[in-house]
């Protein structure tokens, strides 16, 4: 039996109905048209579906839609400020930090969660901060560099 | 780039292992051909079983450069001609 849920996504009040056993990822993609979060595994092992739930980085495949009642969610669709890209988004483009791009939304969200808590991370902190996100194309080199560049830009350095 | 018959040269056409049984075990065969098309046609005409291989895909190495498709590719005089299996990629 479907459940009605009221929540906040990227600052907007959103109501939806879903099945009680439906993962948040499916709700976002199939019911709300927010296909930026990707399903790479559905088991929390790839990070492609990363979202920020009440300030914490989580895999949306490991959250039930029904748990969203009264929560606040940030997804990749909310990262840019109108036409102005988030520094992470711009640095990923400028630094060629994406090849196929399927993992990119997850990396951007994970990187944002990292920088929200740690504005000046070391290379090691970036690498471990992003270790929950799999990328098969880049060898992570340019991703780490893009996050470093964005962090620097955001610190105003 | 289509070559006429008068530009055809006699080549020692090297065969990879799978084709050798079809020509009685030789590692190469003499063949006069101007283009890949002519080479393939003559091979098919003269050696039963060759056509099936050609249909499945044969690449032609001309002086070390590998050609896979273009029939009108010219076989220059004195060029080393090597038939190879077509390799897929990732």
């Amino acid at each position, binding site marked *: 039996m479907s459940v009605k849920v009221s929540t906040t996504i990227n600052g907007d009040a959103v109501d939806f109905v879903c099945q009680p056993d439906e993962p948040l990822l499916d709700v976002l*993609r199939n019911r709300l048209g927010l296909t930026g979060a990707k399903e790479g595994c559905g088991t929390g092992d790839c990070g492609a579906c990363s979202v920020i739930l009440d300030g914490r980085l989580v895999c949306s495949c490991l959250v039930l839609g029904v748990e969203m009642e009264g929560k606040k969610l940030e997804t990749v669709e909310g990262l840019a400020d109108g036409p102005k890209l988030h520094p992470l988004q711009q640095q990923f483009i400028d630094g060629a930090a994406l090849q196929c791009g399927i993992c990119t939304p997850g990396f951007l969200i994970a990187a944002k969660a990292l920088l929200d808590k740690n504005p000046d991370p070391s290379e090691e902190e970036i690498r471990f901060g992003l270790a929950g996100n799999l990328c098969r194309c880049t060898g992570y080199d340019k991703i780490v560099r893009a996050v470093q560049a964005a962090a620097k830009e955001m610190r105003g350095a | 780039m289509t070559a006429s018959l008068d530009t055809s040269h006699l080549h020692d056409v090297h065969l990879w*292992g799978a084709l050798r049984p079809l020509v009685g075990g030789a590692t190469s065969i003499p063949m006069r051909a101007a283009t890949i098309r002519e080479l393939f046609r003559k091979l098919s005409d003269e050696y039963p079983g060759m056509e099936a291989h050609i249909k499945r895909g044969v690449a032609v190495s001309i002086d070390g450069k590998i050609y896979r498709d273009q029939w009108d590719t010219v076989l220059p005089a004195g060029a080393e001609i090597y038939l190879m299996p077509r390799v897929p990629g*990732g």
Partner: protein
Amino acid sequence: MPLDTSLVRKQFKVIGTRVRRPDGIDKVTGRAKYGADAFAPGQLIGLVLRSPHAHARIKKIDISKAEKLQGVKAVITAADLPDLTGGDRGMRDILENCMARSKALYDGHAVAAVAAVDAHTAKQALKLIKIDYEVLPHVTDVDEALKPGAPLIHDDIFTDGIEPKPTKPSNFCKLAEYGHGDVEAGFKEADFVIEKSYKTEQTHQGYIEPHACLANVSPDGVAELWVTTQGPFVYRNHCAALLGLDANKLRVTASEIGGGFGGKTHVWAEPLALALSRKANRPVKLTMTRDEVFRATGPTSSASIDVKVGVKKDGTVTAAFAELRYQNGAFPFTWAEFGAMTAFACYDFKNVKTVSRDAVVNRPKCAAYRAPSAPIAAFAVESTMDMAAKAIGMDPIDFRIKNAAREGTKSSYGPVFGPIGIGPTLEAAKKHAHWNAPLGENQGRGMACGFWFNFGGQTCVDLNVTPDGSVTVALGTIDVGGSRASMALAVAEELGVAYEQVRCVVADTSSLGHNDMTDGSRGTFSSSMAAVDAARKAIHTMRERAAKIWEIPLDEVEWIDGQAKAVGEKHGNKAPLSIKEIAAQAANTGGPIAGHSEIVADGAGVSFATHICDAEVDPETGRTSIKRYTVIQDAGKAMHPSYVEGQYQGGAAQGIGWALNEEYIYGKDGRLQNAGFLDYRIPVCSDLPFIDTQILEIPNPNHPYGVRGVGETSIVPPLGAIGNAISNAAGVRLNHVPMSPPRVLKAIKDAR
């Protein structure tokens, strides 16, 4: 006007700059649409039922209960996919792999599929399908499969390459041989003969996007397929042939693709989605789970290899021999043969021989994985080469330089090499700061070389000048890593305009002629060749139009820096015409301005790389970490250096994963035990260092801009380089990939 592919020696204006890719914003905002991101009104959800058995006869399938479940709109089995392949073994194997017919041949082999109104109903329907299996003995190991008396997977495989052809069927599908000289005589000349046997386990491309498609077939045979693929045209041709559709009525649109590496060169569940849609007369969306991707798509072979190298004290290799045994999964192919062709290709050996044995086993049908078969062979050869260098006390790079293939070398696979790049990569490695840097405790440095063929193939590009003078380009090769940017660079360079003035898209199969699969490192090589051709044709047209505007002869109009210029003294007063000005007059000068190119891109040229790796081995746990890594490879000309570096880094990272931890693990029951990213361990961000790259640019004489394919070779050296580094760090020679901690620790203990 045939394309002149010869190298244009010129100062590039935009080629080689690091421009922003045109799909960048879509991909960082979540707007880019991948395989699973399309939705159709009224779509059904398709799911596939898969065999839990490695090998079983399908005695009976009862779909009656599933068909009756409310919300189920179609249930299909092999009976819904009649064999229309007309004796074409390759196509029949594709068909049988898509859906098991009389037997299930591996754990994960599709046996039935359903389409229902939602995923929940489809799942319930799968449970209602009853299959009566007769479980048969199975074999998953290549050496076991080749033994007499092994469980027989097909009763119609009679070893190719043996004369006379065997009369008894076996799993041994092909024998092949390459080489020249007399290896037996060569070994007799050697001061040392090094012999070693190796094993490598099966790995998967591990693209992050699972296979996904949206199929829509109408009763009149008109169909659309939205799909993540490396080759929409090949998918169209195969799906149309397997389903009995007309190719012109099946329009395949390639979605953005979330990685392929060879794994999306092959149809897997797409024909099932189309068959379900045809039966239900509704759109069907079919998305594989990660578990299905591992169990039922096309990983690369596991293998078993024996290598023997004879060497003189002065470093001359007198003879080299390898026997390579690869499993192809459940359907016959020639993956070992490609290993045999590439194994010794880096070297100039007087006496060399390789023998390949291809086998079928109860595992999923193997597909290409980045320079397919080559990394496996290179691991065995490069390990043995290092042992040979050690035996004579020679530096491993010097040893390889001494034996490196060069122009005029008769390659181990037959032909004589033209100008090639193995020597320059080795020389660059020797001079590289990395090769001469100090090492820490428990660390060792290794290096290795790699070879891959590269190729071109059938390619189309359509270029259109819009009325405002900007340019659109339709490509038939897909963009998996920035190639739309590179193609726009090629067109901008040729036209002489700004990069921003050119916009590239990937066309669907109804909008462009056939293009071969985007594989074999051919995307940038082939499509840029066609893009240059199309641009030249458009330039010719624009010169004609300028001539009409000026009312002067064509040969008095030249194309310089993106503008038509009237040449000759009498035209001194004529201001040049820009594309915008010419386009504005198109309606009066002959209509729309375009350039089309339909070519076979040949002359890709072979590719070589040398890698250097520092590994640290924990002597108490056998755990290896990669401390530093350098890739040196020839790109011909790096059109967009960032994306060339990206290919080098990505290939190296995949090779590192393969070398250290990735493997298919089968249980005694023949079932895959690690069909997920938790236990199929691809490298994570914290596993790797920055990967240094050095791009050599030795122009390819067969491409107008000197471009070579760069996508694949970078996965070839890592296995050997890491094995050699581990050997230098821990004093043990690993002969089994992945060189996982239990294997390394055991080797260390055994050596004590």
